[in-house]
């Protein structure tokens, strides 16, 4: 978002209270952009989510600056009061985001479980190997909980799509 774009967009706005709302929206968007970019710069946020939040901020800005946009969009869907359309859309977006994060959290907890199990398996193998070398046995002791085949080649988690 550049200042020249804002400059050309703002005169479209009606005078008075409406343009004050628009200025507020521009400031909110700018602050949101600043926060998101700074979070990415500090590596607190990955680019994937940064892009998402930036798109949301831009949508907000577009709706605030082009007042006709919201009205015609709500008319198109058949909602009488434009602000109701906005609330509905905002609720929908929030709902989808929450669902997405629930899915992401579920995957993370599944992956954490698999990691813990892998570490535990390695720990068991290491103990078994240590025990074997202390006892002077040439063969490493049986792997705790492992099957006789070759545990290293068990296919890992269920075949999943790449995480990206």
């Amino acid at each position, binding site marked *: 978002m550049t200042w020249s774009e804002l400059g050309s967009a703002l005169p479209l706005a009606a005078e008075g209270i409406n343009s004050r709302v628009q200025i507020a929206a521009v400031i909110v968007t700018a602050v949101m952009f600043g926060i998101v*970019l700074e979070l*990415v*710069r500090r*590596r607190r946020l*990955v*680019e*994937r989510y*940064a*892009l998402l939040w930036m798109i949301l901020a831009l949508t907000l800005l577009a709706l605030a600056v082009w007042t006709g946009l919201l009205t015609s969009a709500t008319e198109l869907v058949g909602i009488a009061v434009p602000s109701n359309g906005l609330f509905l859309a905002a609720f929908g977006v929030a709902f989808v985001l929450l669902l997405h994060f629930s899915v992401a959290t579920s995957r993370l907890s599944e*992956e954490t479980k*698999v*990691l813990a199990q*892998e570490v535990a398996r390695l720990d068991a193998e290491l103990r078994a190997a240590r025990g074997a070398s202390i006892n002077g046995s040439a063969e490493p002791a049986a792997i705790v909980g492992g099957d006789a085949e070759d545990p*290293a*080649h068990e*296919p*890992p*988690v*269920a*075949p*999943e*799509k*790449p*995480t*990206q």
Partner: protein
Amino acid sequence: MAPPDQLSKLAIVPAYNEGDMIARVVREIHRHAPDFDVVVVDDGSADDTARVAEAEGAALIRHPFNLGIGGAVQSGYKYALRNGYDVAIQVDGDGQHKPAHIHDLLESLQTAGDEADMVYGSRFRGDPGYKVPLGRRVGNMIFSVVLTAITRQRITDPTSGFRMTNRRGIELFARDYPHDYPEVEALLMLHAHRLRVHEVPVRMNARGFGRSSIDYPRSAYYMAKVMLALFIGLFRRRPTPVE
């Protein structure tokens, strides 16, 4: 750098469900570059990639689930660092990179008086070796223009993953490597750390089974993500996270 025969050298082969290709890739590396050890990073494959790789005599790093190409490659660099390798090269497990070029890259890495810290194989310095799809050419061109402007050095193939680094590159990438679509950002990291980059013309193969990891809806995300990362990278004084 010491003469090539005294260096310990490693080929890092990231592979995700490449059971059909991986044997050929490992064999080709052994044939064309017998002085390189091979480590296959099985990034959570559901097929027999790991078994085949080990049967071919490669060292194996097996991820318990899929981390994506960035995580796979970084595991390789961590392995290289831990085992004290002087040189590491990435060779894709899908057979796109020709191991016959490995020694071209090594030569460029060690050119006396003009050493590089990272050398990569560019498809666009000559004949690419296969028909690169138009969309990829265009995307590549955009990244190329941006990176050339930032680094003030001609970068013709920033998305190439066929790259060889010395110790300094290994240390950098073992510590910090981008998550997804890492190649372009990695070049910016090298620049930010004042590491020298060379490029060498190579030919590549079309991907083994045409199963490119980047289909159309993803390419828009790819462009946006990498552009954002490049932009923000410019504002990071030290592009390395505090551990």
